[in-house]
């Protein structure tokens, strides 16, 4: 009864859909909205996947600007407030000859979020615009982004520790700045963007392009 999935073809092509909960695949029909195995909602692709990804990416894109321009921490030392942006923090670390830490902060706070955004945008674009780019490489990039994304929370982790540790009133205190919130939004929105992105769309777009090409050929 059960239709057997054939390797080398997408589920879509075979009218098969995978349940995201129990992992069983089932036939895709117009009226099937439930997984026959676990009775959870089931669909061919993640609903509005690309749309959600884009929305979250745009949010991240907007917030990454204040996250880098505005001070991420305020250091209150001897009654004077010293604001520090991410970049000024890295520079002051460099000035105090702490290259290792500066590198870590630089990678975790600047390189990783930017790369993540760039990578996701690239993948999303390639899906959107049906670019001919190796689906495998795209998946590789995506997997890396997904893996590295959790580390970009490192900054916020450090800030939260600093805020709680350095709380000596007017003498020495650390307060989170606007950039910290922005950065959090960036990190969370990219995480969700990566999560909401349906990697199968990569192949879908490739296929669509083939179809299109075929269509064009047909048209020609």
């Amino acid at each position, binding site marked *: 009864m059960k239709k057997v999935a054939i390797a080398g073809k997408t589920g879509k092509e075979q009218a098969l859909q995978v349940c995201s909960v129990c992992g069983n695949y089932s036939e895709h029909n117009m009226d099937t909205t439930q997984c026959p195995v676990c009775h959870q909602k089931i669909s061919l692709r993640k609903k*509005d996947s690309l*749309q959600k990804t884009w*929305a979250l990416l745009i949010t991240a894109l907007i917030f990454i600007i204040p996250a880098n321009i505005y001070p991420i921490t305020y250091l209150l030392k001897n*009654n004077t407030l010293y604001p520090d942006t991410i970049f000024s923090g890295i520079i002051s670390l460099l000035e105090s000859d702490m290259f290792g830490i500066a590198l870590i902060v630089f990678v975790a706070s600047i390189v990783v979020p930017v790369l993540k955004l760039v990578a996701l945008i690239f993948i999303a674009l390639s899906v959107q615009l049906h670019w001919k780019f190796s689906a495998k490489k795209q998946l590789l990039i995506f997997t890396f982004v997904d893996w590295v994304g959790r580390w970009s929370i490192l900054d916020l982790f450090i800030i939260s520790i600093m805020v709680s540790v350095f709380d000596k009133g007017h003498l020495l205190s650390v307060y989170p700045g606007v950039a910290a919130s922005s950065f959090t939004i960036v990190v969370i929105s990219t995480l969700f963007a990566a999560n909401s992105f349906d990697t199968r769309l990569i192949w879908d777009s490739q296929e669509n392009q083939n179809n299109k090409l075929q269509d064009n050929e047909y048209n020609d």
Partner: protein
Amino acid sequence: MTEHILENQAKSVNIRSISPIWFLPIVAAILGLWILFENITHAKTTIKIHFENAESIIVDKTRVRYKGVIVGTVKKVELDSSNGVNVMVEIESHAKFMLREKTQFWLVSPKASLTSITGLDTLFSGSYINLHPGSGDDVSNFTAVSEQPITIPDNALLVNLKNENAGSISVGTPLFYKKIKVGEVVRVRLDKSDQFININAFIDKKYSHLIKEQTKFWNISGLSANISRTGFDFKLDSISSLIAGGITFSSPRESKKISDNSPFTLFDNIDKSNAGINIELVLNNITNLPKGAGILFKGHGIGRITDIQYSLEKKQFIAHATINPQFSEMINAGSQFWLERTALSFSSIKNIGNLITGDYIGFSPAAKTEQKQKTQHRFIVQQTATPLSPVLSLLLLTDDATGLNAGDPISYKGLKIGNINQLNFAKNGKFIEAIIHINHQYQYLINTSSQFYLLSGVNIKASLKGLEIQVTPLQNLLTGGIGLYNKFPVKKSKKITSINKNTRFRLYPSKAMAKLGKNVFSKPLFVSLLSEQLPSISEGSPVYYHKFPIGEVSHFAIDESGLMRTTLAIKGQYKHLIKKESLFWNISGFKIDAGLSGIKIEAASLLSIAAGGIAVDSAPSNVNNRFKNGAYKLFNSYQDATQPPKKIKLIFDEGYDLQVGTKLRLKGLVVGKISALKLNKKNHVEASVDINPQFVKQVTKEGTRFWIIRSEISLSGAKNLGTLISGIYLNVLPGKGKLTTLFKGEGAAPTLANKNIGLALILVADNAGSTDISSPVYHRQIQIGEVIDKQLSNDASGVEITLNIYPQYAHLIRKNSIFWPASGFNLNIGITGASLKSTSLTSLIKGGINMSTDDNKKLQKVADAFSHFKLKKEFKERWLTWTLAIPKP
């Protein structure tokens, strides 16, 4: 087929639904746009400030502040091509409006001065640039000022002060009014002419009304220590003024408010500020009056002498003084000033501190009167304090001011009614004028008949005449002064008799003289005395009347009759004391009875000790005080004159220790003394005895017995030991016969001394044993009598011991009483040991006789006088157990 279906389905999928997730980027976009808008509208302005140097300016760290708010950050520091540094500062948009042409910037760095520590915060936070907004057009290039510009609180009044030097005035020096800080110096600058210091200060708005046209400012900076002989004069207005100096000012009530901003002069001190009233004091001399001497009103300093100058024209010293403003109303025409100087007198020690500090000026305001006194600025300083109430001033004339001091009290019956104000020589040079002040309430005591006399305590006159010491009560000894004597008592209700101001009073040397009145000063009376020998006096020796000198010995001469003539000059005022019955006697020198009984000095007066003297008094009527020619007799003593002693003669077998001067005593009283001793033809000692007149009647009667009392020392006791020291004397037992002058003296006391009256008994014994005269007689160990005599019986068969039983015990002796000797001790030596019995320690030493009466028999009659008893030889124990009750008669 399936493909178709799929295609159809794909188509249906392609119908795009818009996910609500798009809400997120839209919000983000709005936020982003808003931030962008904010950034554009709040764009920071970069300005350039030129500094002399960029010390402690750190890029990105140094802030620009206005009223404590951070309005900018230093972004760049670069060297100026010409001089100094340019500091680029980003000013935040909200502070942009302050960037005007006259806006001032200065660097605030920590500054610690004595009054304040400013910019302490910069110690930690680092220096910052402060901004003070100004007016003008918008500019972006500024030049920093080197110091903080004057910051004046809103609406504060700015005053300009001018002074010759800055003293301890500096920026921040407080201005005080009544020691409340009302303002602050904000700028100290040298005047353009380089002659003055311009001081800008502000007064807080709420105090600005205090500044008036007549306001005077003076410096109260720190500690003003005026070290002079008046002591250390520390003036310290407030601790902060001690540290930072200070300025204070006066605010005269009547003065107008200030109209323009013309500068005030800042004076160095209150004295120079003329805030006090300036007065001139005229002094004759300024001995010990230091510059800076205080002017004290009831001990409170109200002013100070600022300057003393000598006026050559007036030949006076003129002292300029400043009176504190609050006392200015007291200075008017009636005010009095006087010199308070050290007065050391017997009556008081005043202002002894002045010895060290120098004198000061006393002050008293005018007496309260209804009409307002005129103000006056020139006063004459009196030499002594004037009483506050109006006084009666009198002028006394005296020859001799010994013992008088200015300030000594005038007393009337011991009550102080005034004092001596001044002592001067009279114009004619003859007298000394004493100006005395009588207190108002005692003025009624003074009338034309009032007399003043010298009260001076110790009146010591040391002259060739000798030493005259007039002793007055101790109080006067201390106070001295002048006494007032009114012949007629004055009633208080009596109206004050007006006394002519020119009335002169004589000062009498003593009260007695004052009583005598004005004839004190009349001529002396000469009196001649005749005597066999010249008294041991010399010319000038005083003549006393009741120990009061009334004259002196004028000269000596030999009278026609061969007697010595002594002429006395009696002072005029005592003339009346010399009467027909006057009696003169010599009190020359002093009589010293220096015996072992002590030293007795008799002297009429100390002067008479040195110079001798003659005393005069009115004689009793029966004394023949004059020779037939009318001249007075000069007696050797008053006694000689009035009561010549009765002379009697005593004949003694032996002279013993009799001496001239040996006293005769009757019951201890001295009734006479031996005046001469000689051997008569019978080889007896004949003593001439002077019997004092009052005892003549008792002593010079037939039967009177005289015997010599000498010390006797024997084992039984010592008698009359006192005579060892005081010498022997003659005891007198008056007799009852006729008056006579010849007596027989006895060498020892008669057998029955007058005190040994009692019951006489005679004990018959074989021998006298240890019994001795005065050995006691005991009954139950109580002495009831004593042995008064012991002698052999007529036939020498035994000894007769005479006892005297004291009268109170006479009834104890009954006819059957037993006597036994108590003498010595009873030593029993047996096998059991030795026992020593002694009745008493006295009896052990003195011996004695015991008496007891048998209680087995009836009480018998009392023994008669001179009845005979036998003295038992043996003693029986049972005698001691007798307990016979003998009732008192």
